[in-house]
């Protein structure tokens, strides 16, 4: 594992009420890496992401670039540049696509730069957020054609693109993706993963992706962890996990 990791998680424990879900998870992700979290249903994959973004109470240590995130509120963590794309996308259905995207930049400090003010002719120059809106459009051209449309009218795949685009509006240092393939056609899923890879390569965004579709996740990840019953049972580079067919098969229940 990388020596000077960007995200380090040490002995993370979390749960809901009395029910403990994570029993001491430790992992490290280097800057600009994609890390896949695999595992069967109920292993605690979603809880791990929710713990990282502050949505569940945690014990243990979470550090992002040295800064302690454990026990912080979700808005503080978002301000630190952690964008969480929740399971089921978290679309604001009655709002327009543009409103959804702009909400992604809610905590950005530079959301109202000088260039955002009206110039002498009363035209609005582009603020940094407007520029990022353009940036999201280059990744997801379909969103541009739907800007004024109500987000609830988008297809599942478009909503997932919107969710990821919205997360990018934060200019995240760490992107948490929870089951991006959920309920999507294989073609759409592949396209999504290709875009996630492109974002990772172009912006050096560190990504932690939870995924049932191990094959796809391993195809873009550098390293992977297999979670079972709240513990990491297998870690390694994506190639190792893929090669370790027998172990993977017994833990994942299917061929990788």
């Amino acid at each position: 594992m990388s020596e000077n990791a960007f995200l380090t998680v040490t002995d993370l424990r979390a749960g809901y009420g009395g029910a403990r879900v994570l029993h001491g998870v430790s992992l490290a992700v280097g800057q600009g890496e994609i890390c896949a979290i695999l595992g069967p249903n109920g292993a605690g994959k979603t809880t791990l992401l929710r713990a990282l973004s502050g949505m569940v109470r945690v014990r243990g240590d979470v550090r992002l670039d040295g800064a302690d995130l454990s026990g912080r509120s979700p808005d503080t963590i978002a301000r630190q540049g952690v964008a969480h794309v929740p399971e089921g996308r978290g679309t604001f259905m009655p709002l327009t696509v543009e409103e959804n995207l702009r909400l992604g930049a809610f905590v950005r400090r530079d959301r109202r730069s000088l260039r955002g003010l009206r110039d002498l002719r009363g035209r609005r120059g582009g603020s940094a957020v407007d520029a990022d809106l353009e940036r999201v459009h280059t990744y997801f051209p379909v969103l541009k054609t739907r800007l004024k449309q109500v987000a609830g009218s988008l297809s599942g795949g478009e909503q997932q693109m919107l969710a990821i685009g919205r997360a990018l509006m934060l200019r995240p240092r760490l992107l948490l993706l929870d089951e991006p393939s959920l309920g999507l056609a294989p073609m759409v899923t592949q396209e999504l993963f290709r875009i996630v890879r492109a974002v990772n390569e172009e912006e050096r965004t560190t990504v932690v992706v939870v995924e049932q579709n191990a094959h796809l996740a391993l195809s873009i990840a550098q390293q992977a962890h297999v979670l079972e019953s709240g513990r990491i049972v297998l870690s390694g580079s994506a190639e190792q996990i893929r090669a370790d067919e027998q172990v993977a098969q017994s833990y994942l229940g299917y061929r990788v």
Partner: protein
Amino acid sequence: MSGPAEVTEKAARAAAPTRGRSLARVATARRQWIVMAVLLAVACYAPFQLVPFRVFQLTMVLVYAVALLGLNLLVGHAGQISLGHGAFFAVGAYGSAIMIDRWDTPHLATLPVAAAVAFALGLALGLPAMRLRGLYLALVTLAIAIFLVPLLKRFEAVTGGSMGLTLGKPVPPAWTGLAEDQWLYFLALAVTVVAFLLAHGLLRSRVGRALHAVRDNEAAAEVMGVRLSFYKTLAFAWSAMFAGAAGCVYTWVIGFVSPDSFALTLSITLLASIVVGGLGSFSGPLLGGLFMMFVPSISQDVNDAAPGVIFGLLIIAVMYVAPTGLAGLAGRMTRSITKILRKE
């Protein structure tokens, strides 16, 4: 056709629906302002054509509209519930009444104080209440309505106890040449217009976007960095402020406050009226105010013995015919009429 041209055409075709839609949006926004201007002109003309009692009724519609505007902010836009907004209405009414009664404060000067007191109280009560959700929140806000009004009876020396306080009404300045009822009406109209502009500005800002996010998906709003408790409490305090301001104008108009005027039914009627008027809509508070003012008296006319039954049935009827409230119904009707007109 050459390659690049084809591409441009494709891009243009892709962009066209967006442009069309945004143009339509601008048109509807402009139409909305035109409608508002016409409405305002009618509103300014009406009191000179109506008998004083009708003017009084319209004044009360405006008073209710201001309170409903606040409730709309909380229920329609932030997605929270309050069964206790009558209490904040009462706080504004009593605040104004006590200031006028004790210290002979000029009527108009009581408005900012009453609004501020209601805001502060909303903040203080909202802070613990807004950590709750759904039924629990409903119960806590219900408790606010239940304990606050009897509290008013307690401090008899200040509040006049169950006898209440009787006050003089604001006197129209001579230069206006208006009768008392007309002056009151224009005061209420001014407060309503300011309240509408305030709420409109609030909702168009970043804060408004945060409220909508909280309403539509709490979990997603939270990971986006929206502090749930902060914005919910703020929404609660604002809506209390609007209710307080409405209560203050109510005191000016009626010239009398007593605990019985602010019974639990007021809170429930307010909530019912904003739902009937149209949650989260622009015109909902005004339509709700009309409903709140005229439907009880109409049902009284229909059947003297059971106005409550008729009122209840009418609420059910409206919700059945127009689940998005009267505002939604009006919008639907306008659309179908335009469609018919276009066809001909």
